[in-house]
């Protein structure tokens, strides 16, 4: 390498270019921000929703009404579940406790099931963020069942294609809440639009300590919990206290 090919420049030019570039870039980004703020009111009607659920497990009594409501809403075949309630029993007598954990599809922001689906049968709806399965396209390869970190999917024994909770899309599109939310006797489930800051779910999310399941998997779930017990049977390896999980799913432990 020789120095003769070096581009001729000096510090002053460089600084001038730098300042010019920064000015242009900040102006551009600022104008983009302004325009987006202005555009919001007009686009209000077309604004996409992002449905989510908040489950206050302090109000859950483990009665399985949600599971039964879901079963009857969709005529879910025997032995499989779209919605279920897990019991976490901890401790040794007399220091014991039991917690309830209602489960369903998390309708994740980054759904792995969608990434792996080879036919595009499962996808996240742009208008409301619900992850759905097109049973006409699904081939029943079970790849999505493997990929879901929440074990929310199953192979429907009747249709032989993948199936799972769809946030009661038929009810929600008519302005109703999902069957499990409607039937919950403790009012533990709150369903709503996460993108609307005035919705009940948004207000509760903003004012309560909440958690999601398996945040480390990067799926960014849209089902949140208040006061949920995240203990797993793995805790038994440590030997401090006993943990027993009952999933109430046929022949299925917690994955």
């Amino acid at each position, binding site marked *: 390498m020789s120095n003769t090919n070096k581009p001729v420049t000096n510090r002053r030019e460089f600084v001038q270019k730098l300042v010019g570039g920064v000015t242009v870039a900040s102006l551009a980004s600022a104008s983009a921000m302004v325009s987006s703020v202005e555009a919001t009111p007009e686009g209000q009607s077309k604004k996409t929703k992002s449905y989510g659920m908040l489950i206050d497990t302090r109000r859950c009594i483990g009665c399985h009404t949600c599971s039964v409501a879901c079963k009857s809403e969709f005529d879910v075949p025997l032995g499989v579940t779209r919605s279920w309630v897990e019991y976490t029993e901890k401790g040794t007598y007399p220091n014991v406790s039991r917690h309830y954990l209602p489960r369903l599809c998390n309708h994740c922001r980054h759904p792995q099931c969608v990434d792996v689906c080879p036919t595009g049968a499962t996808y996240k709806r742009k208008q409301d963020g619900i992850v759905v399965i097109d049973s006409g396209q699904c*081939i029943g390869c079970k790849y999505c069942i493997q990929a879901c970190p929440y074990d929310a999917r199953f192979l429907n024994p009747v249709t032989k294609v993948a199936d799972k909770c769809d946030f009661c899309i038929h009810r929600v599109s008519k302005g109703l809440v999902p069957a499990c939310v409607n039937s919950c006797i403790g009012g533990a489930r709150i369903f709503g639009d996460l993108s609307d800051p005035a919705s009940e779910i948004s207000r509760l999310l903003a004012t309560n300590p909440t958690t999601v399941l398996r945040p480390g998997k990067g799926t960014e779930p849209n089902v949140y919990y208040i006061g949920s017990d995240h203990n797993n049977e793995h805790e038994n390896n440590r030997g401090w206290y006993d943990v027993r999980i009952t999933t109430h799913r046929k022949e299925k432990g917690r994955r």
Partner: protein
Amino acid sequence: MHELTWGLPVISYFFLAGMGAGAVTVSGSVLLRKGGFGASRFAVARCGALVGPLPVMLGTFLIVFELGQPFRALNLFHLINLSPMSIGSWFLNIFITLSVLYAITFLPSSAGPGDRLAPLRRGLAWVLVPLGIGVAVYTGIMLGAMPARPLWNSPILAALFTLSALSSGVAIILLMGVFFRRKSSNPAIRADYENSSYMLVTSDALLVGGELMVVFLFIMFAHLTIGDTKYAMATILPGGQLAPLFWGMIVMVGLLIPLIIELYQIVPKLIYGRQFKTVVALEVIVPLAILIGGFALRYVIVVAGQISAPTTL
């Protein structure tokens, strides 16, 4: 407790498709290369070309019927997306078609290095070598793509499956050679057979060595990590449920024993320029052990991935 979402049909498919794709890949690369195999080049390529498509088709048959609704599999070809299974099924589709054509070019009894079909055969070989590797590698990528399955969620799995597929491909060619090419009273053909056998065993030793390296990395990774992966790997590490199968069938039967026998066969010629040791018993045992190890590898990995899970909720 844990149900196996992917059972024996899928495991068998992984093994059969890997072996077949490996055989065709090896056949294609042997056909295309200039030196080394000498006069036996065509015979080896023919062996791989004729045997390769069958296991791939059998495996595909198994997974298509495992769906429960076989004709639904056509939905795979409505589109192509970034799912490893989507890309893999397109690869598989094209691979089966072309490998059958490739096999047909070897079928005529008059088929030889300079015949009328030679350009077509070479053209197909050029396409089938990368395609075969694609078919072999996608199964590993498919399993590795899921954070929900910590044992599979490793980029090295695809390398392991690919090396195992190529090694199984060499093994099935060697095995076919013993049955169809070994017996010959013609000393020239006999010498060719020994030369090709030496070349194939040498390549296989290299592949098996590479596979051992990858298995070592796989295990080392488990040892050096904590969390989900560590606990998932515990199923195949000593004391785990699948440890006897992993260490006995994969590492011992499938890798170490074949490697030692292969080294015993090739080292005298490779290093000291002496005779290549061909004993019919060894020529059968080595490929069989490699094929058993190849199946055990798919079995252990696919089952272990499904009986282990993330530890936290």
